[in-house]
């Protein structure tokens, strides 16, 4: 095995077919950039959903006729349900106080009796998946006779979360499509480069070069192209994220690992696309 030869051939391939190299590196960067954007969006969508899930709660209004025993029983039933972490009881009196705080008027000044029902504020844990089972959760509670009404506080946010769910699926699909597409494109570009060097490959075979020996410089070349493509994408993402955060501070979270993943993806892209492309010629 002559690794030095392979590395030298790989670098000389770089200088001999400059335009093809630039095209391949550009293709790698372009697809990596799209994949990174998709990943960043997906990541931040998850973050938003997690944030919303952490904050959301459900208010449950109780029927007026309940005794304190029934209220306690209902409270422990709810606490036993999945994803429920806390159940706070808001009595009719407390509800009246909060009404006063909110509206500035004492409800008893207007009405003779307190019309506000007692309620529970139910806090869900972070894992509770608002997008799918919160309405089921509310429906289940609403069917109970002790319950008058269930209000999901973040109706508007829920729509957002639902949207997040849909867009996450779209993003994953897009990610897969772009990934496969880019592998195909890069492989084809590299195939063109190899095609131009068919004569070299044929001659090498005639003088007794093994397939592995012939393959090695092309793989190293693919690896280098992927590496350079990865570095360019890293820089592009870094600048773009910086500019975005200057405009909208704190709205985007890009973990440092993403940059390494981009680089690794570039190298893997280049290597596997070369491997895929050269198989045709050996």
């Amino acid at each position: 095995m002559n690794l030095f030869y392979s590395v030298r051939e790989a670098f000389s391939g770089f200088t001999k077919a400059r335009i093809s190299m630039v095209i391949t590196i550009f293709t790698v960067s372009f697809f990596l950039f799209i994949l990174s954007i998709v990943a960043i969006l997906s990541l931040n969508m998850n973050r938003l959903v997690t944030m919303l899930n952490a904050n959301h709660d459900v208010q449950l209004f109780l029927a007026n006729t309940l005794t304190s025993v029934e209220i306690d029983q209902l409270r422990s039933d709810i606490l036993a349900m999945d994803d429920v972490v806390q159940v706070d009881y808001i009595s009719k009196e407390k509800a009246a106080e909060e009404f006063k705080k909110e509206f500035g008027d004492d409800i008893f000044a207007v009405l003779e009796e307190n019309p506000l029902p007692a309620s529970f504020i139910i806090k869900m844990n972070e894992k509770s998946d608002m997008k799918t089972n919160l309405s089921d959760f509310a429906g289940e509670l609403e069917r109970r006779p002790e319950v008058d009404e269930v209000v999901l506080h973040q109706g508007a946010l829920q729509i957002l979360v639902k949207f997040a769910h849909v867009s996450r699926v779209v993003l994953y699909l897009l990610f897969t499509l772009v990934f496969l597409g880019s592998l195909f494109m890069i492989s084809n570009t590299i195939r063109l480069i190899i095609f131009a060097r068919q004569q070299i490959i044929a001659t090498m075979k005639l003088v007794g070069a093994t397939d592995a020996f012939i393959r090695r410089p092309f793989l190293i070349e693919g690896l280098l192209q992927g590496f350079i493509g990865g570095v360019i994408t890293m820089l592009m993402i870094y600048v773009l994220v910086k500019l975005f955060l200057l405009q909208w501070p704190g709205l985007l979270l890009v973990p440092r690992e993403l940059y390494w993943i981009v680089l690794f993806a570039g190298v893997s892209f280049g290597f596997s696309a070369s491997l895929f492309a050269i198989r045709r010629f050996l």
Partner: protein
Amino acid sequence: MLELHNVKFIYPTGDGIQHITFRINPGELVFLVGPSGAGKSTVLKSIFLQERPTEGHVIVGEYNSLFVSRQEIPYLRRKLGIVFQDFKLLNDRDVFRNISFVLEVIGTRSKVIKRRVLRALADVGLSHKSRKYPEELSGGEQQRVAIARAIVNEPYILLADEPTGNLDPDTAGEIMDVLMRINMRGTSLLMATHNFALAKAYNGRIIRIEHGQLV
């Protein structure tokens, strides 16, 4: 050393070779003579297994075509030196690298490579052109580089497929001189040519082939 036993290979077009049997002894000079399309190149290709015989077998040193796996073919080819009519030089590298890569293929150390390449270049009289690119050389010089590439690995046998076919008579004579010198030093030479007069001018064995069969 080199033996062909009842070798047959037929292309999808129906052309090909059959019943080819001969042996080449160490240091022997053999001309494979026949008109164009007689099957000379196919015989050579069946020796270095570019075309694998469908019947019969070829023995090159310790390799027998019946038992050689696809992975072993490169190792069989390293026992041979091959010279083509169209030279098959790599235009993207200079003369030195055109020859040295044969040794790099088999993992020879760089010091040894340098010594052996310079020796091969001296054998073909091109020491002064080692940094030239193939396109900067004449046809005769290119063929000499191809011969240097074929002998640098000290092969059992040199296979030459119409090595003078693309050259004018004077240059062809020079190339023949180079090949004869190599043969005189003990390397077997099997040369395919359509030129019967050329073959007769040298003191070698002549094998005639017509319509894919020895005559």
